[in-house]
C-alpha cells in the first residue's frame, strides 16, 4: 500500500490540491489571478515530490503502479505540458469560474500521470477517466455559447461510449487472466491454448476502440473536428495532447507489451488503423478553412503515424537504425507535444476578443504584423510536415525506419503510404504559411497578447529546434527506455 502511494505520490498530491481548489473556489469572490499561480505552484510541488520521493522508490515489476523509465518519462512530460497548458490559459476570460477551470486542468495532468505508471487495469482505467471527466467540465465552463455547448455534449456522450467499450474490453481480459495485473496478463502466453480464444480477440478490439477514441483514430476520430472547432484554442490544445499522449502510453503498455500472444493480430489491426487514420486525417485536412478544425485533422493524421510505431512495436522488429517501434512512438510524442502545443500557443497569443483568430485567413500578413510569431508558427508547421531540421523530421524518420526494418513487406508498404501522406499534409500546412507570408495583413494590427502564452511559444520553439539540430541525446534516451521486444 505504501509502495503504491509512493509510486503515485505526485498525482495523488495533485488530486488533493485540485480538490482543495474546488472547495476554496466556492468562497472566492470575483476574478483573481491567484488560481493561475496556485496551479503553477501545485505542478511545481508535484514535480518536487516526483524528483525527491517517487523516483527513489522501486516497486516490484508486478506492483499496481510501477516507476520504470517509461512511467517517469510520462509523468515528467505530463507535468511539463500541464504547465504549458496552464500558461496558455492565463489569457482566458474565466470570471468566477477560474477555480473550477484550473482545478480540472490539474486533474487532467494527474490522470495522465496515473496512466503513465499504471500496471494494472483498474488504475489504468481510473487514470483515463481522470482525464476525460474533468475535460467535460473544462469544455463546459470555458464557452457557454451554442457551439461550446454542442461541443461539450458531443464530447461527453462519445467519450462515455468509448469508455464503456474500453471497460467492456478490460472485463474480457480479466476473464481470461483472472487477474487485473498487466504483468499477469502478459504471462498468459504460456497458459493459452492454440489458437488464442476468441474472447481475447474481442478484448483486443474493444480495448483498441476505446483507446482509439482518446487518440482520435479512425473510425472514432469524427468527434475531433467538431469539438475542437466548438471550443477555445487552449482546450483544443489540451484535447489534442493529453488524451492522445495517455492513449498512446496505454497502447504501449497494454497492446504492445501485455498481449504478446496477439502480436500478429495487433500488427494487422494497427496497419489498417494507421493507414486509414492518416489518410482520413490528411485528405479531410485539405478541405478545411477553420484553423482548429484543420488542426484537429492534423492531430488525427499524426495519430495515424504513431499507430505505425505501435504496430511495429508489437511485431518486436529489430531496432538497429534508431529505435524500436514503441521507442519511436515515445520520440514522436515529444516532437508532437512541442509542435502541436506550439501552434496552439501561437493562436492563443494572437487571439483577442477584438480580433479572434478562427480561420486561416485571420492569419493573413502575420509575417508583417508579428514577424517572430509568424516565424515560430512556420517552424511548427514545417515540423508537422516533417521537414529537416525540425523535431518532426526526426520523428518521422524514427517511425518509418522502424517500419522499414520490421522485415514485413506490408509494413514497408505502410511506410510508403505514410510518407505520401506526409507529402499530402504539406498542402494544408503550407497554405497557412503562405497566408502568413504572402498575403497582406487585414484589419488593425495589435501587439501580441498573453505573455505566458509567448513563453510557451518560446519553449516549444526551443524544443523543436534543439531536437531538430541535435536529435542524438533524445534518440539515445528513447533507446535507453528499453521498449524493444
Amino acid at each position, binding site marked *: 500500500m505504501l509502495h503504491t502511494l509512493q509510486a503515485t505520490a505526485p498525482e495523488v498530491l495533485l488530486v488533493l490540491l485540485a480538490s482543495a481548489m474546488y472547495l476554496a473556489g466556492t468562497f472566492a469572490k470575483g476574478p483573481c489571478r491567484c488560481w493561475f499561480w496556485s496551479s503553477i505552484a501545485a505542478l511545481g510541488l508535484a514535480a518536487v515530490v516526483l524528483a525527491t520521493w517517487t523516483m527513489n522508490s522501486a516497486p516490484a515489476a508486478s506492483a499496481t503502479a510501477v516507476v520504470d523509465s517509461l512511467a517517469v518519462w510520462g509523468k515528467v512530460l505530463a507535468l511539463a505540458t500541464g504547465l504549458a497548458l496552464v500558461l496558455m490559459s492565463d489569457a482566458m476570460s474565466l470570471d468566477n469560474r477560474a477555480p473550477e477551470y484550473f482545478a480540472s486542468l490539474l486533474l487532467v495532468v494527474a490522470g495522465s500521470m496515473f496512466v503513465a505508471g499504471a500496471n494494472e487495469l483498474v488504475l489504468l482505467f481510473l487514470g483515463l477517466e481522470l482525464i476525460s471527466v474533468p475535460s467535460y467540465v473544462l469544455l463546459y465552463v470555458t464557452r457557454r455559447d451554442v457551439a461550446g455547448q454542442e461541443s461539450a455534449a458531443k464530447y461527453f456522450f462519445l467519450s462515455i461510449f468509448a469508455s464503456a467499450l474500453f471497460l467492456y474490453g478490460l472485463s474480457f481480459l480479466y476473464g481470461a487472466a483472472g487477474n487485473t495485473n498487466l504483468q499477469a496478463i502478459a504471462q498468459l502466453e504460456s497458459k493459452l491454448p492454440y489458437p488464442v480464444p476468441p474472447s481475447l480477440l474481442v478484448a483486443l478490439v474493444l480495448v483498441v476502440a476505446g483507446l482509439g477514441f482518446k487518440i482520435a483514430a479512425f473510425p472514432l476520430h469524427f468527434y475531433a473536428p467538431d469539438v475542437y472547432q466548438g471550443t477555445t484554442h487552449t482546450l483544443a490544445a489540451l484535447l489534442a495532447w493529453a488524451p492522445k499522449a495517455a492513449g498512446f502510453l496505454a497502447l504501449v503498455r497494454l497492446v504492445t507489451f501485455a498481449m504478446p500472444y496477439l502480436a500478429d493480430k495487433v500488427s494487422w489491426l494497427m496497419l489498417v488503423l494507421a493507414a486509414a487514420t492518416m489518410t482520413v486525417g490528411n485528405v479531410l485536412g485539405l478541405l478545411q478553412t477553420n484553423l482548429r478544425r484543420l488542426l484537429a485533422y492534423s492531430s488525427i493524421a499524426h495519430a495515424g503515424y504513431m499507430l505505425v510505431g505501435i504496430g511495429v512495436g508489437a511485431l518486436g522488429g529489430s531496432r538497429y537504425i534508431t529505435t524500436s517501434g514503441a521507442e519511436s512512438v515515445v520520440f514522436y510524442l515529444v516532437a508532437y507535444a512541442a509542435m502541436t502545443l506550439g501552434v496552439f500557443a501561437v493562436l492563443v497569443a494572437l487571439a483577442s476578443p477584438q480580433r479572434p483568430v478562427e480561420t486561416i485567413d485571420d492569419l493573413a500578413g502575420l509575417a508583417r504584423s508579428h514577424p517572430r510569431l509568424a516565424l515560430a508558427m512556420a517552424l511548427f508547421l514545417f515540423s508537422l510536415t516533417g*521537414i529537416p531540421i525540425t523535431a518532426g523530421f526526426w520523428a518521422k524518420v524514427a517511425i518509418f525506419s522502424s517500419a*522499414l*526494418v520490421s522485415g514485413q513487406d506490408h509494413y514497408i508498404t505502410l511506410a510508403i503510404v505514410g510518407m505520401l501522406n506526409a*507529402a499530402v499534409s*504539406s498542402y494544408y500546412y*503550407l497554405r497557412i504559411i503562405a497566408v502568413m*507570408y*504572402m498575403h497582406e495583413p487585414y484589419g488593425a494590427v495589435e501587439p501580441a497578447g498573453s505573455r505566458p502564452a509567448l513563453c510557451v511559444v518560446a519553449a516549444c520553439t526551443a524544443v523543436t529546434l534543439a531536437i531538430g539540430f541535435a*536529435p542524438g541525446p533524445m*534518440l539515445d534516451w528513447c533507446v535507453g527506455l528499453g521498449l524493444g521486444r
Partner: protein
Amino acid sequence: MDFVLLVAVLLPVAGAAVVMLASHGDAHAARRTALAATLATLAATVIVAVGFDATETASQMVTDWPWLGSAGIHFAIGLDGIALWLVVLTSLLSVTAVLVSWRAVEERPRAYYALLLLLETGMLGVFTALDIILFYVFFEFTLIPLFFLIGVWGGPDRRLAARKFFIYTLSGSVLTLLGLLYIVAAYHEQTAALGKPTLTFSIPELTANLHLSSAKQWWVFLALTAGFAIKVPLWPFHTWLPLAHVEAPTAGSVILAGVLLKIGTYGFLRFNLALLPAASHEFLAPIAVLAVIGIVYGALTALAQSDIKRLVAYSSVSHLGYCMLGLFALGSVDTATVGITGSLLQMVNHGLSTGALFALVGMLYERYHTREIRSLGGLARKMPVLAFFFVVFTLSSIGLPGLNGFVGEFLVLLAMFEVRKAYSIIGAVGIILGAFYMLWLVQRMLFGPLKEPHDGDDAVRDLDGREIAALAPIAAVCLWIGLCPNIFLSRMEPAVRQVAERLEPAATRVAIAHDSH
C-alpha cells in the same frame, strides 16, 4: 587545408546571420553583406578547387563529426571529382544571384538576402555531404528558402507557383528518403549475414561495399527515382518547372535552373548509378526514352513560347535531357566514363548558360517590364552590351564549338551513340531544334528594326557595371571550358571512372549470378 571546404559550406549561413542581425532594415547594408558573403564563399571554393588533387578518387578535404551518436549518423562533408565543379558553380551563381537582385528587390531585403544565403549553404551541403541523412537534410532544406523566395518576391501567380513547387518536389523526395533508409538497413543486413553487423550512413562506405540483390535494387531504384526525376525534371514530371521559373524572382530562376535542377541529376549519379548498378542497367531504356522525349518535347514547347522566361524554362527541360542521357550511356567502362563526365560537364554548362540567360531576361524585364518576345525587337542597337552577352550565352547554350556547351553535348552523344544509336540520333535532332528556337529568339529580339513596348523609351540604358560584373565571369568561364575542357574533365575523371567500373556490365552480371545462387 581541409577546413576550407567546411568554411565554404558554413560561410553563407554566417552571412545570413549577419544580414539578419546587423543590417537593421538597411537595404544597402543587407545587399553589401550578402555580396561579401557570397564572394568570400566563392573565394573559398576556388581555393578548394585549386588545392584539389586530380589523381585522387576518394573524397578530399573531409570533415567528419559524429552527429547522432548511437545511430551512426555523421556530419561528414568532403569533395570528390563528381561534386567539385558543381560546388564551384554554386558559389559562382550565388554571386550572380546577389548582383541581379541589387535593384530588383526593395521589399524586405534582409529576409530576402538571408534566404538566398541559406539556400547557398543548402546547395553546397547537398553536393558535399558524405552521409546519407545529411545529404537528405540539405536536399529537403533547399525547399524552404526557395519556397519563400518564389512565394514572397515572385510574380503575380507566385503563391500557386511556390506551393506547387514545394509540394510536387516533396511528394517525390519523401519516397527518396525511404529508399535511402532502406539502403542503410539492407547494408546492415548484408554485413550481419557475414557476422559483422555494421550500421553506417556513410556514402563512400556504402558505395564501396553494398551488394543488393537485383530485385531489391529495382525497388530502391524506383523509390530514389521518384524524388530525383521530379527534381531534374525528367519528362513527364516537369510540369512544376515552367510555373516556378516564370513566377520566381530573377535570382530564384538563376539558382533554380543553375543549381537546383542539378541536384536531381547529381542524385541519380551518386545513388542510383553508384549504388544500384544492376537496376541502372535495367532502367537504361526507360530513362533514356524519357530523356529523349524530354529533349524533343522541351525544344518544341520552347519553340512555341511567346514569353522569353518561359522559353528559357522549357529549354531547361530539353537540356537536362542530355544530362540524363549521358548518365545512362552504360556501355563499357570507357564509354560510361565518357558519358558521365560529359553529363557532369553538361550540368555545369547548363548552369552557366541558362543561369546567365535567366539573369539577362531579368535585366530586360527590369527595363521594359515585359517578357513578351513580340513587343521587343532590334535591341542590339540600343543595348549592344546586353546583346553581346545574350548572343554569347545563346551560342554557349546551343553548343557552338569553342564554347562550353559543345564539349558536354558532344561527349554525351558520343557515349550514347556507342550504347544505343537511336537515342543519340534523336538527341542530335534536339540540338538542331535548340539552335533553331534560341537563334530565332535572338533574331526577333535583338535584330531588325527597334521595337519597344513604349516607343522612344529613352530612359532605358545599356547594362551598367554591376550587371556586367554579374555576367562577365560566367562568360569567361564558358569560354574557358570551351577552349580548355581538359582542365575540368581531368579532375572529374578518376572519381567518375570508379563509378563506371562498378557499372560495368560484366561486373553487374556477376552480381546478378551471385544472387541466383
